[in-house]
C-alpha cells in the first residue's frame, strides 16, 4: 500500500479567518482506496480542511495535488468534476423535491427534445438507492424521509457523479443504531468499488472499526498520521487534546455556599429525530459561589440544557427544576430573568447582539424599566448605569454611543455579560462565552467570572475548549448525546478523562 502514489496530496495548506488561524501548514497524503479518518476536537480545523477539499473555500494558502496533478477548486462544481463529493453533517437537500430529483439536481437527465426525463431519473435513482440498501421510492419527497435515508440520498448523488473520493463529515451523528450498521455496510461496498473515503469523526469506536489510517488535527495544525492497526483509542484521544494547560488558575480558595439551582431528571424531547431526545435525565446542582462547567462535543445538548434552565427551549422539558428551593417552570425568558437567571448565548451575533443599537443600548436593554417611571426611560440614569457597568467590566469602546459592531468580540461579550449583571442575577448561564474571542480577552473573561462567583452568584459555564473549563470551573459535568456521562470535581478532571466521557460510545439500550 505504501508504494502507491497518494490520490490526494495536501501540502502545507493554511487558512485564516478574521481572528482565527483555522489551519496552519497542514500536509496529509491520502492513498487510493483507503478509508482515512480525520480526528480532532471542535475547532481543530477538520471542517475547514474538508471545505477546502470540496471547493467550498477557494482562497487558501498551500497546494493540493489530485493523483499527482496540482488542482485548485474555485467552487463545489470544480471539485465534483474532479471526482470529489462531500456529505455534509448538515445535509443539503431540497426538501420539497423527490429523492430522484435531489440526486440529479443541476444535472437533470433530458429527453432528446430537451424536456426533463423524470422516468429515466427515477429509474436511475432507484438503482442507486437499491445498491445502498435503501428501499424508499425515488419519488418520495426528501423532506419526508428520515435523516438516515436522506444521507443515503446524498451518497447516491455522489455515486451518480462517479466520485472516486467521498468526504463524510460526522455521518453518524444523527443516526439510529440500525442506520449506523447499514451505513457501515454501504461504506464497505463503496470501498470494494475502490472509492477513497475521508471520514471525519471524533467517535473512537467508529474510527477504529472503519479506518485504515488516522490523521489527528489540533488547533489547526497536523499532529500525526497513524496507521489504525498500530495505535489505540487512548493514544488518539490523548493526541487530540494533548496541549499544555495554561498556567492560569482562578479557582483557588473559593468556597461553595447554599444550593442555588437543583435540576432533577431533566429531559427535553426531540420530535422527529431518531434519538427522540435532546436531553435525557440530566440532574445537577449549582451552589452559590461556584462555577459549574459543562463539557460536551457539538450536538451533545449543552446549549439545550441552558435554554431549558432559562425557559427558552423550543419544546417543553420534563423533570424538576428548583431555584433556591422553590420549584420553577419558566415558559418565557422573562420569567427566568425576573427570578434571577441570566443567559449569555453562544451565538452572539444571532442571539445576543442588537447590531443596529449602540453600546449603551445593548447594555441597558434588560433593565430599562428600572431607569425611569411609568414606562418612560430616563436617559440620564440609563447612561449612568450602563457607564458604571462598562467601567466595571473594562469594556474598551469609543463610548456608549459607539455602534456595538465596532467593538471586538471580547468587548461585545463583556457588554452582553454586563447586560445581565445589571439585572442582579443569582445564576448566570454562560454558553461558550469565549467563542471567537482572542486569548487576551479570554483571560480577562476568566478573571471576570472568578470575580462574579466570589461576589456570591452561581455560574454555569459551557465551552468547547477543555483547558478553559479546567482553568475556570470548580466542577465539570460531561454531556454526550444528551446524557450526563461524567461528573468531575476540580483536581480529578483531566482533558483525557473528559474527552473519553464526551466521546463515549452510545449507551447500550
Amino acid at each position: 500500500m505504501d508504494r502507491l502514489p497518494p490520490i490526494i496530496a495536501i501540502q502545507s495548506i493554511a487558512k485564516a479567518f478574521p481572528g482565527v488561524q483555522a489551519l496552519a501548514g497542514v500536509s496529509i497524503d491520502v492513498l487510493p482506496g483507503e478509508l482515512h479518518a480525520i480526528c480532532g476536537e471542535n475547532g481543530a480545523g477538520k471542517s475547514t480542511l474538508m471545505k477546502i477539499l470540496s471547493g467550498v473555500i477557494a482562497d487558501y494558502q498551500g497546494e493540493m495535488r489530485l493523483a499527482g496533478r496540482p488542482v485548485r477548486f474555485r467552487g463545489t462544481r470544480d471539485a465534483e468534476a474532479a471526482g470529489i463529493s462531500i456529505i455534509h453533517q448538515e445535509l443539503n437537500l431540497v426538501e420539497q423535491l423527490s429523492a430522484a430529483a435531489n440526486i440529479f439536481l443541476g444535472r437533470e437527465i433530458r429527453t432528446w427534445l430537451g424536456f426533463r426525463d423524470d422516468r429515466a431519473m427515477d429509474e436511475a435513482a432507484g438503482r442507486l438507492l437499491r445498491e445502498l440498501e435503501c428501499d424508499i421510492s425515488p419519488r418520495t419527497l426528501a423532506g419526508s424521509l428520515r435523516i438516515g435515508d436522506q444521507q443515503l440520498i446524498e451518497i447516491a448523488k455522489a455515486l451518480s457523479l462517479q466520485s472516486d473520493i467521498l468526504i463524510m463529515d460526522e455521518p453518524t451523528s444523527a443516526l439510529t443504531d440500525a442506520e449506523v450498521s447499514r451505513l457501515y455496510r454501504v461504506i464497505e461496498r463503496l470501498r470494494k468499488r475502490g472509492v477513497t473515503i475521508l471520514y471525519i469523526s471524533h467517535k473512537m469506536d467508529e474510527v477504529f472499526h472503519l479506518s485504515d489510517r488516522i490523521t489527528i488535527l489540533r488547533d489547526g495544525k497536523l499532529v500525526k498520521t497513524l496507521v489504525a492497526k498500530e495505535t489505540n483509542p487512548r493514544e488518539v484521544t490523548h493526541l487530540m487534546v494533548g496541549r499544555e494547560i495554561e498556567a492560569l488558575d482562578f479557582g483557588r480558595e473559593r468556597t461553595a455556599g447554599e444550593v442555588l439551582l437543583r435540576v432533577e431528571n431533566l429531559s427535553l424531547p426531540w420530535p422527529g429525530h431518531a434519538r427522540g431526545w435532546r436531553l435525557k435525565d440530566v440532574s445537577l446542582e449549582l451552589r452559590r459561589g461556584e462555577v459549574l462547567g459543562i463539557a460536551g462535543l457539538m450536538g451533545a445538548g449543552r446549549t439545550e440544557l441552558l435554554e431549558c434552565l432559562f425557559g427558552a427551549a423550543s419544546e417543553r422539558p420534563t423533570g424538576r427544576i428548583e431555584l433556591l428551593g422553590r420549584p420553577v417552570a419558566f415558559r418565557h425568558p422573562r420569567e427566568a430573568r425576573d427570578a434571577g437567571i441570566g443567559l449569555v448565548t453562544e451565538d452572539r451575533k444571532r442571539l445576543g447582539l442588537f447590531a443596529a443599537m449602540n453600546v449603551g443600548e445593548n447594555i441597558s436593554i434588560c433593565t430599562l424599566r428600572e431607569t425611569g417611571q411609568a414606562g418612560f426611560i430616563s436617559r440620564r440614569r440609563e447612561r449612568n448605569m450602563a457607564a458604571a457597568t462598562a467601567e466595571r467590566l473594562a469594556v474598551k469602546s469609543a463610548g456608549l454611543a459607539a455602534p456595538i459592531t465596532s467593538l471586538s468580540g471580547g468587548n461585545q461579550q463583556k457588554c452582553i455579560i454586563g447586560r445581565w449583571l445589571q439585572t442582579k442575577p443569582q445564576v448566570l448561564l454562560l454558553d461558550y462565552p469565549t467563542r471567537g474571542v482572542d486569548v487576551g480577552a479570554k483571560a480577562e473573561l476568566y478573571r471576570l467570572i472568578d470575580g462574579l462567583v466570589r461576589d456570591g452568584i452561581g455560574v454555569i459555564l459551557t465551552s468547547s475548549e477543555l483547558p478553559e473549563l479546567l482553568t475556570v470551573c470548580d466542577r465539570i459535568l460531561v454531556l454526550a448525546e444528551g446524557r450526563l456521562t461524567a461528573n468531575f470535581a476540580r483536581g480529578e478532571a483531566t482533558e483525557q478523562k473528559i474527552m473519553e466521557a464526551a466521546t463515549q460510545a452510545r449507551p447500550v439500550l
Partner: protein
Amino acid sequence: MTATPGQGGPRSIPFQELALVAAIVLVFVLTGVVDRNHTYFTSFQESAIIVLRNTSLLGIIALGAAVVIIAGGIDLSAGSMVAFSATTCALILVLFADPADRRLLSVGALGVFCGISGGVLAGFLVGTLHAWLVTSIKLPPFVATLATLVGLRSFARAMCEFITRERWGSAAQQININTPFFRMLKEHGVWISTGIFLLLAVATWLVLSRTVLGRHIYALGGNEQAARLSGIRTENIKWFAYCFGAMTASIAGIILMADGSVAQPVNLARGYELNAIAAAVVGGCSLQGGVGTVLGTVLGTLFLRLVIDAVSKLIKSNADVYEGMIVGIVVALAVTLTQVRQLTRSGGEFFPGIRGLAAIPTLAIAAGLLAMMSSANVELLKGRMVLFGVGVGIVTLLVLSAVKLLETQRRQTR
C-alpha cells in the same frame, strides 16, 4: 465617534433626514422657479394647504406603517382599514339617526362620539386580529395582512349593504354624511387633520424614543431572537405595533370620511397602504426592521406628496395620473441612494453579467417613453415629441452601456 468614553450622547442626525430636508427644499425651489405660473411663490398658502392636506392624511397612516415596519413586520391592510373604519363610523351614525333621515342630519353628540369611538375600536380589533394571526397562528405578517387587505373592504361593503337594507329598506353602497359635526370638521379640514397628524407624530416620537416600549420595538425589529432571550415579551410588542398600525389607519378613515362627506367602502383609500409604506421607506425605515425614525417618516411623507404635487404643477395634468409612477421612482431612488454607497464601497457592479445587460434596454426604453410623454407640455418640443423620446432613449442606452463596459474592464484588470 463624536462621544467621549463613558458618555452616551444623543445620536447625530442621520444622513437620511438631512438629505430629505435638502431634497424637499430643492424640489420646492425648483418647482417654484420652473413652473410658469410660479404657483409655489405667488400663491404659497393655497399650495401649502393642498400639500398639507394630502401629507397629513398619508402621514397619519405612514406613522402606523413605520411602527409596524420598525417592529420587523409589515401591514398591507391600511387602505382597507381606512375604508373599514369610515364605514363602521358611518353605519353607527346611521343607527343613531332617524330611519327617515338618510342624510344623517339628526345625529346628536352621543351618536358622533359612538361613531368615532366605533371606528377607532374597529382598528384596535383588526390590529388584535393581525397580532393573533402573526404570533399564535404563526402566519407571516405579509400573508396575514394581505388577507385583511382583501377581506376588510369586501366585509365593509357587505356590512354597509346589510345595515342600510335593514334600517332604510333599501341597500346602499355608500353613505352620505351631512351630520353637522362632520360638516364642521370638513370646513376646518386641513387644520384639524394637520393638527391630528402633528399630535400623533409627537406621541409616536415620545413612545419610540423615550419609553421602554419604544426601545423594545426597535429591539424586536432588530433581532427578534435576541429580544426574546433578553426577556422581552415579543408577542405583546407585536400586538401593540399591529394595533397602532390599524388604529392610525382608522383615524385617517374618519378624517377622510369627514373630508369627502361620504363613506364609500368600495373605493375609499384604495392603494393608500402602499403609499404609506413607501413614505416610511423613503423616510429611512428598513423593511428588515429595527431601523427608522418618526422625523424621517414625516419628512418622507412630505417629500413624496410634494413631488407628486410638483409634477402635477409642471405637467398641468391631474396628479392622479402620475402618482403611482412618481411614488415608484422616488422609492426606488431613495433606496438606491443608500445602496449606492454600499455597492461602490464593496466593489459590486450595477450591471453584472447577462442579467445586467438585459436591464439596460429596459431602463433606456422607460427613460425614452417618459421623456416623450413629458415633452407634450414643452412649447419648444411640439411636433418633435417622438424624436425627443427616441433621442433620450438612445442617450440613456449609450451612457448605461458605457457604465457596463467600464465595469467589465475593471473586473478583468482585477
